[in-house]
């Protein structure tokens, strides 16, 4: 029973965390129909930006955590301007190919600058301890990271639902042509959203560093999990992504605790079947097909 409880708790924590990366992935697809395979690499870049902030600039953990996305956003904006903007009139599949190449470049650059080793970061000072939950010792930092992720994700929803920029984002997602005709600067908006999505991914990479450790390939699994979440929810459908993130996270942690590797095989199979029969997503109307 205790084991099950901890699995569920781990799943919920990972789900909150996965929200940060899934929302960005989904937003960028909904807005510009960009399938961003570099999202995992940008996440890894966030982890390394944290290291630069802490070890390079000597900042504390919290300032470095804020600094990490700020370092990654300009890189993302550059990527969008140079590599993604020129191909936005080509079939969507090209965005997938280009971003895949870019993820190669980012991971390569990280390996070149920092080596291929793994860096373990201790959680910041007051959160190194564990807390007793129904007789289970659970690391405090994980709970904190989950709460922070939830707040940031809620912030993303607030921006999209209640601000003028959010209104424009929703308009372009609905109908880019009409939005442009009404005076929305779609070009600028896509750059902005791509940058912010990368910022979210980088923030996740930095926030997760004390939990998952930092290494050049750290984004590969996160990218796949986020994609599964976003597809389950319907690509481009934000509310669906939230459900998708928790389904993927819980399935991985509960299944992984009992039947080990087979659970992930089943998860992928379920997603593949779901996508074949409901190409627009299981939990909502997305825009894949």
């Amino acid at each position, binding site marked *: 029973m205790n084991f099950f409880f901890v699995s569920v708790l781990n799943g919920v924590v990972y789900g909150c965390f996965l929200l940060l990366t899934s929302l960005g992935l989904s937003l960028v697809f909904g807005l510009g129909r960009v*399938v961003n395979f570099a999202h995992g690499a940008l996440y890894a870049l966030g982890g390394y930006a944290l290291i630069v902030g802490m070890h390079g600039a000597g900042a504390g953990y919290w300032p470095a955590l804020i600094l990490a996305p700020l370092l990654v956003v300009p890189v993302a904006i550059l990527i969008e301007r140079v*590599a993604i903007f*020129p*191909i936005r009139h080509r*079939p*969507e*599949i*090209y965005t*997938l*190919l*280009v971003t*895949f*190449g*870019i*993820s*190669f*470049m*980012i*991971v*390569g*650059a990280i*390996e*070149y600058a920092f080596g291929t080793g793994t860096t373990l970061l201790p959680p910041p000072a007051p959160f190194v301890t564990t807390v007793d939950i129904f007789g289970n010792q659970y690391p405090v930092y994980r709970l904190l990271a989950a709460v922070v992720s939830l707040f940031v994700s809620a912030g993303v929803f607030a921006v999209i639902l209640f601000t003028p920029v959010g209104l424009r984002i929703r308009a372009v997602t609905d109908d880019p042509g009409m939005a442009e005709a009404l005076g929305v600067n779609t070009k600028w908006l896509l750059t902005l959203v791509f940058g912010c999505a990368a910022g979210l991914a980088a923030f996740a990479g930095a926030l997760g560093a004390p939990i998952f450790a930092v290494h050049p390939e750290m984004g*590969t699994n996160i990218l*796949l999990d986020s*994609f*599964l979440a976003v*597809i389950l929810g319907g*690509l481009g459908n934000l509310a669906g992504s939230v459900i998708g993130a928790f389904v993927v996270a819980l399935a991985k942690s509960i299944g992984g605790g009992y039947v*080990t*590797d*087979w659970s*992930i*095989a089943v998860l*992928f*199979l379920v*997603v*593949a*079947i779901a*996508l*074949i029969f409901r*190409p627009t997503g299981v939990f909502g109307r997305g825009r*894949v*097909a």
Partner: protein
Amino acid sequence: MTIAVVAGLLAILPFVGAAPFTITLLTEGLIFAIWAMSLDILVGYTGLVTFGHAAAFGLGSYAAGFFAREVTTDFFVTLLFAEVVVIAVAVTIGFVVTRVSGIAFAIISLCIAQVLFQIAVAWRDVTEGMDGLVGVPLPKMFGVTINAGTELYLLTVVTLAAVCIGLRRLVESPFGRTLQAIRTNEDRAAAVGINVRLNKWLAFIISWAVAGVGGTLMVFLKAGTTPMSLHWTESGNVLVMTIFGGLGTLFGPVIGAISFVFLRDEFTTRFEAWQLAFGFVFVVVVLAFPTGLAGIIARVWRSLWPVRS
């Protein structure tokens, strides 16, 4: 004809002083070339971008490796067994995935390849888990062992030439034209009476079957295989080779695969940032030269010898 000449030139390389290491590297490149050509049938000719083509190659490797270790090392029987397995899986998977196209196809194929990857990790009785199949014996042909090095290289050259001729005939056949019609415009192809679903399915099966041949050769070259051969990043690598070489040309992917292997070797020995350099080249090719190396070569060729009309 051209294929025969190129194959002949490749075949004499070991006898004119090419180093054994170069020959091994070239063998790997030529096996990748078979794999990249099989991908070209799907991506370049049918317009179905897959992010799960490692599944076909890795499955061929696993089936052949398992069979060679447990039953017989006869090359033809092993190849036959691997092909039966790969085609059976391709028939099943292809039947469902060909319902969709575009991004959905890319992502579903990725998911299915990851299913196979996880099975390879989890089904330890057959696949030996993360360790992979090791100690696959050398193949035999008519009772004679094919040794690593020159003999395996020659076998690869002959296989590649056969695959080249077969696929060349395929893409020039009415079936090949049908695939290209589907690539150009799926709806219009359907409107003129082409059974789009059936033809996509056939293309999928053929592509997997050819990739399985490559996988079989690879398991003998490496004397084993690991689950990483099924991982989606491998699918990305073969996509890079094919696009780098030039989609929809068949000879492009061959150049792409060979240059991939040699560039990787050069870059990894000379400086550490091989992924950075290769990613950069790939992005530039996709952005500026959608026709790949083959397109660049063709353009230079035409400017040197302009066709008079």
